[in-house]
């Protein structure tokens, strides 16, 4: 770490998001504006002198010797975590690591890996692994009038309410794994601000040709599946279980394979409306 500290640092910023304090420093001036849009949603500048995790980004300057591969190198504390000639790729790695660290270290929130939309004053959670089609389903729900909360994390507080993590939607538009970022407004939707109580949780995965006929899960089964989507359950099992217990009261749990997103999105919103009405009565 001392060796890294001795390098010259042109600019840096302290970042606070969800109670987690991190720092980012860059060796070359002018790079800062490129990673500001990648910071966790709702971030604020932090004036703390000590941070929980310090990112150091070494970017080669224009005047470096010809013939050398111009590598951008990213360190998290003293560990090198990314190295590539393409700065955008390294910034993508910074975004992934920073968001995941924030999710893991947030002191008073539990982060669940799930897409989230707001619907009739309740949150609908769509937990799922990568490439299960969460973002596609979120996009279709936004087109049908839902409010955008997240395509990555459901952030649950101590009262069991769901907070937004509304980064731009990352949509994979072809067979590659590269994502294009879109704002919720692109799909005619607003981004939610207010924490919402939970209405429904839908565990589904895209399967070509499948008909959306979900089975309902019991409260305990649903809570177990949600635990399997929690980022910090291994390090904070007690808080995770307590927040999940508060979260799931009165929620509807559905599970099944889905076909095309548009059809499933309409059905999920419809089932959720029925569940929400029943809960309110």
């Amino acid at each position, binding site marked *: 770490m001392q060796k890294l500290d001795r390098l010259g640092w042109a600019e840096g910023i302290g970042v606070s998001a969800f109670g987690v304090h991190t720092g980012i420093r860059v060796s070359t001036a002018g790079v800062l504006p490129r990673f500001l849009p990648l910071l966790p949603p709702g971030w604020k500048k932090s004036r703390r002198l000590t941070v929980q995790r310090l990112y150091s980004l070494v970017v080669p300057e224009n005047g470096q010797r010809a013939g050398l591969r111009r590598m951008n190198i*990213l360190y998290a504390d003293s560990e090198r*975590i*990314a*190295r*590539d000639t*393409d700065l955008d*790729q*390294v910034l*993508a*790695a910074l975004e*992934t*690591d920073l*968001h*995941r660290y924030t*999710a*893991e270290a947030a002191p008073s929130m539990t982060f669940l*890996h799930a897409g989230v939309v707001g619907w009739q004053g309740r949150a609908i959670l769509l937990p799922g692994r*990568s*490439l299960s089609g969460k973002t596609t389903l979120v996009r279709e729900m936004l087109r049908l009038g839902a409010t955008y909360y997240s395509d*990555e*994390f459901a952030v649950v507080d101590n009262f069991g309410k769901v907070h937004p993590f509304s980064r731009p939607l990352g949509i994979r538009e072809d067979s*590659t*794994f*590269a994502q294009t970022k879109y704002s919720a407004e692109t799909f005619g939707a607003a981004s939610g601000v207010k924490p919402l109580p939970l209405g429904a949780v839908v565990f589904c995965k895209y399967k070509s040709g499948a008909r959306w006929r979900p089975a309902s899960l*019991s*409260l*305990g*089964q649903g*809570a*177990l*599946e949600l*635990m*399997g*989507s*929690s*980022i*910090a*359950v*291994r390090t904070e*099992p*007690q808080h995770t*279980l*307590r927040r*999940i*217990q508060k979260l*799931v009261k009165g929620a509807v749990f559905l599970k099944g394979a889905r076909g095309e997103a548009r059809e499933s999105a309409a059905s999920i919103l419809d089932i959720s409306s029925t569940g929400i009405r029943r809960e309110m009565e």
Partner: protein
Amino acid sequence: MKERQNPKARVDCLSREFGDEILVYDRQRNVGHCLNSTAAAAWKLCDGKRSALELANILTQQLSAPVDESVVQMALEELAKARLLVESEAPVRRTSRREAIRTLGIAGAIALPLVTSLVAPTPARAASCLPKMSPCVSNTQCCSGNCNTNAGKCK
């Protein structure tokens, strides 16, 4: 010959009630378990002092339905398989689901005891990540946590 021990629930696990089910988290093995109503009721009674027959009698009163000893044996088997009981010298007697259903009758008043388990994910597995062979520049991007930086692909 060693004396058969009465079943005892582990006390070092975290547990939370969800209606009549219980979610148990085993911190030693990082595994979560959902105990359905019958398994949960049996687990709560396993104090190391009561025998299976005594458990069956108490459960019959608690659940207001006849609970046979074979159903309790089945619950104990499920709980032992999930390692939610203090390990005893004597193995839990195996009762087949078929035998239990026969005892209960087709439309039994209680659910057959069931424990569903799920391994808690690591942060890397739980969050968005790239599958095998997708382009990467960092271990943090890959679900495997392993990026072959020379090839620029997730292992």
